[in-house]
């Protein structure tokens, strides 16, 4: 007859062990996609089941868990995942980035610098950074084996020739530890630099595609770029949060009935603290937009210079 009751953190011990073995290998192979069985979860596939499995394989009674979606802890799916983790693992939850030991997130990395003991779990829809150029995972695996990534730079070059800009928005591919091309999950380009030589461990997991991978602390993470046309984050230099006036953090755009729009901090818990004048942690981008690791983000290429470069002039 049907069994009532579930294992701690839902996953049975065998499923946890498989995930844990795979996670340790993923950390030893920064940026490499480790295939795992990926059990069905009581949440629809494609709704964060990969991140959820990793969180459940990690979580213990001492953890404090934060879950956010698009930067917002109150987003309905984030609320549902958090409710499930708390119900199955009996852990405390918090929206405060600074208080959390485990942070599961979809599409964002918090604005406040994560500490060395925090672990970030990112939900991944498309783990394969080559999928746009090679839809077969079997063939993409061979390209990774040979570190054959020329196509990716070629595609960036074609973008520059055709559109005078890299058209890749979120999920901008990066090279990890100088070896593996990796999809950073659909975080905005604004969040890409936060992975580079970060103090914390980031784990990525795609439940539907059954792949997980890792960026350990202090690991080189470089965007696909040309030396003379460097990678650029979203240009929101002129934007400010409509409630707090804060600038130089990632904003979302809210359309207004008159056809205009206003802007709002995407990291809602950071916004809450700023609005209430509560203490915050140091952020990856300072109040003037400077990145905390000087020199990592090169100055933007002026359009005239890009034009000259494309004409073959130095």
């Amino acid at each position, binding site marked *: 007859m049907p069994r009532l009751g579930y294992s701690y953190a839902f996953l049975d011990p065998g499923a946890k062990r498989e995930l844990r073995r795979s996670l340790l290998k993923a950390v030893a192979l920064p940026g490499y996609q480790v295939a795992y069985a*990926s059990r069905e*979860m*009581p949440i629809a596939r494609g709704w964060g089941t990969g991140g959820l499995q990793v969180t459940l394989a990690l979580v213990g009674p001492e953890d404090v868990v934060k879950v956010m979606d698009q930067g917002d802890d109150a987003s309905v799916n984030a609320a549902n995942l*958090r409710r499930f983790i708390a119900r199955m693992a009996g852990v405390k939850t918090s929206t405060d980035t600074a208080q959390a030991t485990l942070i599961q997130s979809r599409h964002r990395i918090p604005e406040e610098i994560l500490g060395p003991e925090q672990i970030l779990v990112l939900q991944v829809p498309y783990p394969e950074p080559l999928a746009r150029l090679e839809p077969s995972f079997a063939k993409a695996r061979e390209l990774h084996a040979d570190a054959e990534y020329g196509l990716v730079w070629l595609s960036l070059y074609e973008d520059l020739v055709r559109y005078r800009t890299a058209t890749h928005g979120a999920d901008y591919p990066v090279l990890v530890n100088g070896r593996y091309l990796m999809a950073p999950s659909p975080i905005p380009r604004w969040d890409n630099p936060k992975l580079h030589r970060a103090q914390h461990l980031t784990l990525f997991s795609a439940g539907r595609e059954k792949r997980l991978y890792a960026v350990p602390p202090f690991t080189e993470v470089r965007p696909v770029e040309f030396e003379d046309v460097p990678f650029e984050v979203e240009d929101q230099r002129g934007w400010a949060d409509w409630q707090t006036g804060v600038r130089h953090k990632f904003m979302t755009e809210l359309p207004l009935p008159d056809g205009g729009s206003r802007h709002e901090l995407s990291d809602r818990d950071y916004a809450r603290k700023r609005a209430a004048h509560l203490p915050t942690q140091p952020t990856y981008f300072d109040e003037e937009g400077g990145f905390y690791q000087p020199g990592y983000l090169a100055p933007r290429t002026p359009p005239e210079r890009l034009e000259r470069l494309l004409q073959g002039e130095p």
Partner: protein
Amino acid sequence: MAYVAARGGEEAIQQAEALYRRLLGPLDAGLVRRLEQALPYLLDRLMGEGSLYAPELAALALAQTGGDLYEAVLLLRAYRTTLPRLGYAEPLEPEALLTVRRISAAFKDIPGGQVLGPTLDYSHRLLHFEPQEAPPARTGAEAQASLHLPFVADWHRQNGLLAPRPPDPTPGPEIPDLTREPLLFPAPRAQRLQALSRADTGGVLALGYANMRGYGAIHPTVNEVRLAYAEVRLRHPVTGAVFSAGRVRYSQAEVLTKFRPGPGGKPALELGFAATLGWNEVKLIAAAMLDAAMDQGEPHPAHTEEFVLSHTEPVEAGGFCIHYKLPHYVTFLSNLLAHQGQPEEVEDA
């Protein structure tokens, strides 16, 4: 330390679920029992795709989801994945099958005979507006068909038209298990057949039909379609004796490709095969054809193992499709800004 709680979202999702349940009405054991009795073919499809043979749980899943099949399959799968593996069943041989229907399109008559069994194939598809009594059981048939019918493919094998059957694998961990190991391509045949067995009926039909219409070159013949009750036979861990743990509704299909040059240049047939829990003929015929097509190595997607198996997985395909309802405003904005190049100053608060 005080922890900051989230507001808003949690209340909203609880109310939304409550509204869904209110519209669905009460759920009790009687409803579950009636569904189980009235809808065996729907339950079969559900149990096949859920890869969990448990009619009462399948009926419960139907009741709980109001008949939303993808949700019901997910319920069964999510429950199944929490169950421990208690043992490995012995391979199914014809003598372990109580076959109630077994037909072949390849021959007029076959050893054991064409057994029509229960089917609507030759019914007039008319809605019955009057109440229907179940017809009485027919008695006094002159000859009773045997319940243990040989596999038609074994006849071809005896006659050298098909490669001999590979030796049965030893039941146990050496058989790669799709639910415990990732599916990588090219997949071991065991995993391929497992994936087809729990594939989405509609998805398999769409790709199989594409193949039948000409996006493929196998022109298959249905060698047999079989509906049966299968004994699930287990080996006793201490005594080693094989015993039956119960019966499940089971179906399988064999299709034959056209003759191709085999080993040694002699023309030979190849076999496509599919089997599933429950009785689901449409899915099996399409799946067996796809199984045969996948070995042909032709460029059409319906010939490619990775394409077919990745895109006919009901829980993944259904879940990913509906995930587009989730907010994507960060990625949307990021893409917008990438295409706008340098945006002008919009406002300055």
